[in-house]
């Protein structure tokens, strides 16, 4: 991707959080690019640092968290040196965010219309009636029936799916260049999830904004993303286009995630799904080995000797593993546990 089509560029992002006795290091050396009109999905289990990465990009982490980065650019502007005032101007205007839980992301004290106008009037010199007009247009655009009525309603009068549509409309108000959606469908039921995702995709294509989609749901990714960034333990472990990563995962962690999804037509009834044993460990201190080594079925002694660097895997793909990329060392059944009883107690790490 050339520099001028790049909206967001993150280099060497680190987040550290002091806790009593030590320091958590939940985001390490993360690089992410989002181009104009591109959807980049950040995937990984809970606790992999996805949301913290998003909040760090928005400058919304609590004061206690120490955020460092080599570069954090929106278009050509460096956000790392931006003043709090500049941050406030950018948020909601150039970068917008859609949150995970639409039930708590709207203030129960204000009407939908008031909350939408507030955003516009904060960033634009615009009259209240014009702001209402634009809010109305956008509510219609995100497929809310009877938008005039909804404008006058309070959040508790809307269902979860409607609220998430309102959140999307709010994010679009100022025509941002980048939208960060932090698990936008996790709190919704499956049928609504599909609608919301389709809406996000359509709007993203129509307006040509960059979308940074954070999710643990590979099913969501498959239909949406242009590129995938897989995170594990606060590090980016694999980057590639959507098709590349899902069809031929290179990093064992990605492979484990992909193996844990049942494929309609291929997975037979009663067939065991793969899963990744263990949980994401707490991230403390410097790396001395591969971060995934304790859960990796392919791990060798070489994996424990030193931290693994990102390497070019050809085709524009990147990965953080020393396994050969040609698939010679791989056995797809390595993820299926021989002992069924213990497998039942474990959760599938990648959900449908």
């Amino acid at each position, binding site marked *: 991707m050339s520099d001028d089509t790049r909206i967001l560029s993150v280099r060497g992002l680190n987040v550290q959080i002091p806790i009593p006795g030590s320091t958590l290091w939940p985001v390490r050396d993360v690089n992410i690019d989002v181009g104009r009109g591109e959807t980049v999905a950040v995937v990984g289990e809970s606790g992999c640092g996805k949301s913290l990465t998003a909040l760090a990009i*928005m400058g*919304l982490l609590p*004061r*206690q968290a120490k955020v460092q980065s080599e570069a954090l650019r929106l278009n050509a502007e460096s956000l790392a040196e931006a003043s709090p005032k500049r*941050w*406030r*101007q*950018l*948020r*909601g*205007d150039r970068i*917008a*965010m859609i*949150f*995970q*839980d639409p*039930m*708590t*992301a*709207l*203030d*129960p*004290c*204000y*009407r939908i219309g008031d909350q939408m106008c*507030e*955003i516009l009037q*904060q*960033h634009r010199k615009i009259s209240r009636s014009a702001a209402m007009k634009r809010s109305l247009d956008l509510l219609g655009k995100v497929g809310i029936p009877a938008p005039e009525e909804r404008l006058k309603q*309070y*959040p*508790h009068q809307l269902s979860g799916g409607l609220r998430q549509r309102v*959140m999307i409309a*709010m994010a679009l108000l100022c025509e941002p260049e980048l939208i960060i959606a932090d698990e936008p469908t996790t709190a919704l039921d499956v049928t609504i999830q599909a609608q919301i995702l389709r809406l996000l995709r359509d709007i993203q294509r129509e307006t040509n904004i960059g979308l940074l989609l954070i999710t643990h749901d590979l099913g969501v990714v498959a239909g949406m993303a242009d590129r995938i960034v897989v995170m594990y333990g606060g590090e980016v472990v694999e980057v590639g286009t959507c098709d590349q990563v899902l069809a031929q995962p290179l990093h064992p962690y990605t492979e484990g995630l992909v193996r844990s999804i049942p494929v309609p037509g291929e997975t037979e009834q009663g067939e065991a799904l793969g899963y990744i044993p263990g949980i994401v460990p707490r991230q403390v201190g410097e790396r001395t080995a591969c971060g995934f080594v304790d859960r990796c079925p392919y791990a060798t002694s070489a994996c424990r000797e030193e931290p693994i660097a990102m390497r070019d895997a050809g085709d524009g793909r990147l990965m953080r593993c020393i396994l050969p990329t040609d698939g010679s060392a791989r056995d797809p059944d390595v993820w299926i546990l021989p002992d069924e009883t213990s497998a039942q107690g474990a959760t599938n790490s990648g959900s449908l």
Partner: protein
Amino acid sequence: MSPGRVALRRAIRHGGFWIGGTIIFVIVLMAIFAPLLTPYDPSVQSLSEGFVPPVWAEAGSWEHPLGTDNLGRDYFARLLYGARISLGLGLLTVIISGTIGTAMGITAGYWGGWPDMIINFFITVRLTLPVVLVALVVVALIGSSLWLLILVIGLLLWDRFAIVVRSATQQLAQREYITSARAIGSSTPRILFREILPNITGPLVVVTSIEIAHAILLEAALSFLGLGVQPPDVSWGLMVAEAKAQLLFRPWMIAIPGAALVLLIFAINLVGDALRDVTTPEGKA
């Protein structure tokens, strides 16, 4: 429907709100229209008419419905004018203490970290101070006036505001709509006044009612000890104090202002409780 109308509709159906509200309403009306309700001046003495018993006693008459005190002052008039001071003092002190406590609570709850530690320290220090004793010392040192009394009580009773607002704010600060407000570029003052304050009105209203009652009782206690409201002003606490010598001979002289106090405090608490039920925003869970 707007939250205001929801609250109104709920209030109409709330029994406690009706009972408490009616009592307070009547007391307020009586305080405001005191000059119309009694021909007497509460401080004018008429020594020849001392210790007239109230109307329900054998020697009582409708001329002085609640009798007179030892100096011949009409007891009903004193009760009415005393209500003015008790109510006014309750309101004014709560404005002072509520402002201080809310500001401290929001600061501590929203920022956490060292501002929280400092404010917590002040709350702890404040909680170690015996309120009546401190008020007594201040009044004894500086002298007693109604305004000083309001100021002292107001400066002492902010602790409950601070504690309740702090914890309510802490809970709110975790909500996504606060993060979301920051994500759309809202400034901090805007978040505090437009997002947090409206969402903590429920607990704030309850504490306000409790603290009004608290302040009125404290004033009564200080007046009883002779360091509160000074004659010729009159308050219910002062009436109880002045009647204590007559406790065994004319018990109604204590019972009347005492019952008035009980009734008022009871009513305020009822309304405070009802307001909490009524103002909780829908879908706030």
